[in-house]
């Protein structure tokens, strides 16, 4: 405002207004409604009165402030008072802010007849705008429900206030398209289907006036069946076919002419017919017709693979940046084989899928659906190496939305170097978010794009609160603890540099946002098999549970590391201060131990089997292998050893001799279980053949992590016991001497067991996949001779 007083230019004035609006957004609703918004409104109203508003952004800001204050009538009066030419969209234009804003305000104010009239006019100018149809139907049905009829004053308003009028309007729209010789618009046809759906839901008799679902969907397929979007356009209406499903499919198949006896006649000779056939198959799958017997699935998959291979001949002139016409045959076949694998567990089917997709990718290197599927299937098999060759090439914000496609497969099989490089790149994106976006909040002010200011602030917050960001931070800490530490000193250095607060949990659990894009992969499944809203929520909860587990682990390790070893003299004030700090950290360690224990118990209760989401859905976390592998129990035992060693420094006798002995035995038992799971071997018998056991590999990864943490904690014990060892030479209590001796013995025995594990399994941990899975590779080569990474 000071700037404005010096040089009265609109931008300076509106910067002040926008700042007040932002304060309104950030405050509670009472304060924003009673103070900030009215102030902003008065400031702009002053400019309006003096006729000083200049740009479209300033007009829109005023409308936004009025709307947020609930003053829709005033907003409407203001818009009405403006020239249509004030806004960039010209009259009759599809981005006509003037009309669309009016219609929107009227709808919210429940002035349905006026709103309907505007949407009707907008649709006459642009019959392909879906949002207009939705609002047109909403306003029409609202008028019907209140039995609205025009009176003298409203007769000039041309709105459709009955179902009959709406029917006529929609039918006229279709008639106009039918009369065209040029490209038809999908809007009027889909609007007719939508109206039919709405009428059927209301059990309205007028539904019978429209063509039946069978006729309408067939008509839509006839006109638009060669477009890729046909399936997604009609899929939500297919349920209306009900008992006529089989007739619909039979009629469509007949119209394609591809069910000849001759194998040559079976194949589509042109891309457009092929696309129609693919649409037919997709619809067929959506209607549940691919729920076949095992043999029938395999037979149909084989037919689709044949169609895919033959179909490639139609696409020889396509560029490498194009998708092949027949690619979706391959994807449909893969979905069938995946279904067959879900039922039978025959791993050979997964290998077949990989071979098919690799081959298809060679012909269609830009098809990202193939790449995503391959990454998924390789991960199910417990393989990561070939995924690198797929080159999904995520950039910037895709680390948040699609990062899960890379992070989980790498972590699951312990490809730490690949994992670390992806982690580093992704974290760099998140950490520069704040700096990047702040600059553009300022730009939005500068250029007067006021509505963008709030949007940018919300966007920045959404990225900052990303679950993926929180997970990556904690996983980086754990990755560094495993890879960057070779002795206790380096472990101490690494942990202290991470600046983790063991006492205060800095994670804002309530604000976490799930920004994963779980809709990117193609699916033609029936609605009940698709990823549901509940499953998305379940996956989000599961990810948060995993995050909490890692969060508690890292904080507990930090608390243990920060436990001070007491000096020999207990009488000095320095030691009392240290003792005070030590007590805090010990309390923190105790609390974290208890929280971790409770969390592990909850996970054990909830995760009683491996979760599996739909093929297009997210990966599950490593919670199930973690709890079944007893890693939680082992970690807790190590933490208790540290606590015991700390109590030894205390003369109050909190420690009983038997405590450490018990712990040593428990740890011994747990280590045997952990080693036992790893020693099961990665080649197991299943379905009468040898199969690669991805779960054993995951157990090995978790074992490496748990034992790595164990090493760190034993290092802490060593540090805690160091000052006490000379005690044995002095005249201290014999009991204390024995306890310390036993503690030292226990720690040594734990270390010995751990060392033996590493000796036996070091080759396992550090070997590359080809060495480990030689047996299984023979099976793979049988199907796919030229996998480049081998």
């Amino acid at each position, binding site marked *: 405002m000071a700037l404005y007083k010096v040089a009265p230019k609109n931008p300076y004035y509106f910067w002040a207004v926008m700042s007040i609006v932002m304060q309104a957004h950030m405050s509670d609703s009472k304060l924003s409604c009673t103070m900030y918004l009215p102030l902003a409104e008065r400031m702009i109203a002053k400019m309006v009165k003096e006729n000083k508003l200049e740009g479209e952004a300033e007009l829109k800001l005023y409308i936004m402030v009025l709307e947020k204050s609930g003053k829709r009538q005033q907003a409407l009066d203001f818009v009405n008072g403006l020239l249509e030419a004030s806004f960039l*969209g010209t009259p009759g234009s599809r981005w006509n802010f003037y009309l669309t804003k009016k219609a929107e305000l009227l709808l919210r104010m429940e002035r349905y007849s006026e709103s309907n009239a505007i949407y009707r006019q907008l649709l006459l100018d642009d019959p392909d705008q879906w949002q207009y149809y939705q609002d047109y139907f909403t306003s029409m049905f609202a008028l019907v429900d209140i039995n609205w009829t025009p009176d003298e004053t409203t007769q000039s308003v041309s709105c459709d206030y009955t179902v009959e009028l709406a029917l006529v309007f929609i039918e006229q729209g279709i008639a106009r398209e039918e009369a065209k010789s040029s490209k038809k618009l999908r809007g009027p046809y889909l609007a007719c289907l939508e109206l039919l759906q709405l009428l059927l839901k209301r059990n309205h008799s007028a539904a019978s006036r429209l063509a039946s679902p069978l006729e309408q969907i067939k008509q839509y397929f006839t006109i638009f069946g060669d*477009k890729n979007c046909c399936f*997604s356009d009609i899929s939500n209406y297919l349920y209306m076919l009900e008992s006529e499903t089989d007739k619909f499919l039979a009629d469509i198949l007949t119209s394609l002419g591809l069910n000849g006896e001759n194998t040559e006649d079976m194949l589509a000779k042109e891309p457009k017919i092929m696309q129609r056939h693919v649409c037919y198959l997709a619809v067929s799958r959506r209607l549940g017709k691919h729920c076949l017997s095992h043999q029938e699935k395999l037979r149909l998959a084989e037919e689709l693979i044949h169609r895919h291979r033959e179909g490639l001949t139609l696409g020889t002139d396509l560029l490498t940046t194009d998708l092949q016409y027949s690619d979706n045959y391959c994807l449909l076949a893969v979905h069938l084989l995946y279904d067959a694998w879900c039922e039978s567990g025959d791993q050979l089917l997964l290998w077949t899928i990989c071979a098919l997709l690799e081959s298809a990718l060679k012909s269609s290197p830009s098809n990202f659906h193939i790449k995503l599927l391959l990454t998924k299937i390789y991960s199910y098999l417990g393989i990561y190496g070939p995924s690198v060759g797929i080159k999904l090439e995520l950039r910037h*914000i*895709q680390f948040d939305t699609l990062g899960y496609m890379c992070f989980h497969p790498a972590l699951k099989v312990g490809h730490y170097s690949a994992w670390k490089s992806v982690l580093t790149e992704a974290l760099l994106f998140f950490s520069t978010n704040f700096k990047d976006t702040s600059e553009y909040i300022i730009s939005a002010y500068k250029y007067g794009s006021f509505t963008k200011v709030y949007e940018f602030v919300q966007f920045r917050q959404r990225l900052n609160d990303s679950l993926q960001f929180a997970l990556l931070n904690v996983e980086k800490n754990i990755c560094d603890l495993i890879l960057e530490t070779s002795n206790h000193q380096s472990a101490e250095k690494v942990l202290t540099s991470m600046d983790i607060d063991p006492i205060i949990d800095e994670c804002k659990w309530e604000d976490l946002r799930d920004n994963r894009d779980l809709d*990117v992969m193609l699916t033609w499944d029936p609605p009940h098999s698709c990823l549901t809203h509940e499953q998305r929520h379940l996956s989000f909860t599961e990810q948060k549970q995993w995050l909490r587990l890692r969060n508690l682990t890292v904080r507990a390790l930090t608390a243990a590391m920060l436990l001070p070893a007491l000096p020999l003299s207990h009488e000095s004030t320095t030691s009392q201060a240290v003792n005070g700090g030590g007590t805090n950290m010990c309390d923190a360690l105790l609390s974290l131990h208890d929280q971790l224990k409770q969390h592990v118990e909850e996970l054990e209760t909830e995760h009683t089997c491996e979760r599996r989401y739909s093929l297009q859905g997210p990966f599950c976390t490593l919670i199930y292998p973690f709890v079944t592998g007893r890693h939680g129990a082992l970690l807790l035992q190590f933490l208790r050893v540290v606590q015991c060693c700390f109590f030894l420094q205390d003369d109050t006798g909190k420690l009983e001799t038997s405590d450490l002995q018990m712990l040593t035995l428990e740890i011994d038992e747990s280590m045997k279980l952990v080693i036992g799971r790893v020693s099961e071997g990665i080649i197991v018998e299943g379905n009468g053949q040898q199969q690669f056991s991805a779960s054993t590999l995951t157990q090995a990864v978790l074992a490496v992590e748990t034992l790595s943490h164990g090493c760190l904690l034993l290092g802490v014990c060593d540090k805690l016991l160091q000052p006490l060892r000379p005690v044995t030479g002095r005249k201290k209590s014999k009991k204390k001497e024995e306890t310390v001796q036993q503690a030292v013995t226990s720690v040594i025995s734990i270390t010995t067991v751990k060392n033996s594990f590493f000796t036996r399994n070091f080759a396992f941990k550090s070997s590359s996949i080809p060495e480990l899975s030689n047996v299984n590779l023979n099976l793979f080569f049988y199907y796919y001779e030229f996998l480049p990474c081998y």
Partner: protein
Amino acid sequence: MTTLRPFTCDDMFRFNNVNLDPLTETYGLSFYMQYLAHWPEYFLLAEAPNEDIMGYIMGKSEGHGEKWHGHVTALTVAPEYRRLGLAATFMSALEEISEKKRAYFVDLFVRVSNKVAVDMYKQLGYSVYRRVLEYYSGDPDEDAFDMRKALSMDTEGKSVIALQHPVRPEDVE
């Protein structure tokens, strides 16, 4: 059937079905936000009835005097929503907004190897104004066509008279 509306920041969380296409680059946040802050009217998106993002266009206006023009920075349509005339719809929107701003012409750069796009723009009334050597960096670098369409302010069509010789990127304003 589309909903044409302004692009918002939240759309960046959902545009993978468009951006995973090899010819579509995913830029850093600053790139998108610069356009949203400065030229939000040119940053439009088309949404399908099932809420999929079908495609989007990014543009700007720049230049002085008779060189004041609209520019198409990026135009992309998801593979499953191609051949629906969406690119033409986007271009028409950008031209309309540029007309309103009294621009003289609209221009864009396209890889010389992108035959499909070049033919499409020609059908929409664009012509090659000049060739810019090694405009796109890569292995190897690739030339670009600078294609233009005159708007009503350019009554004599001066802005689209093709240059006789190619230029280098540093010659482009």
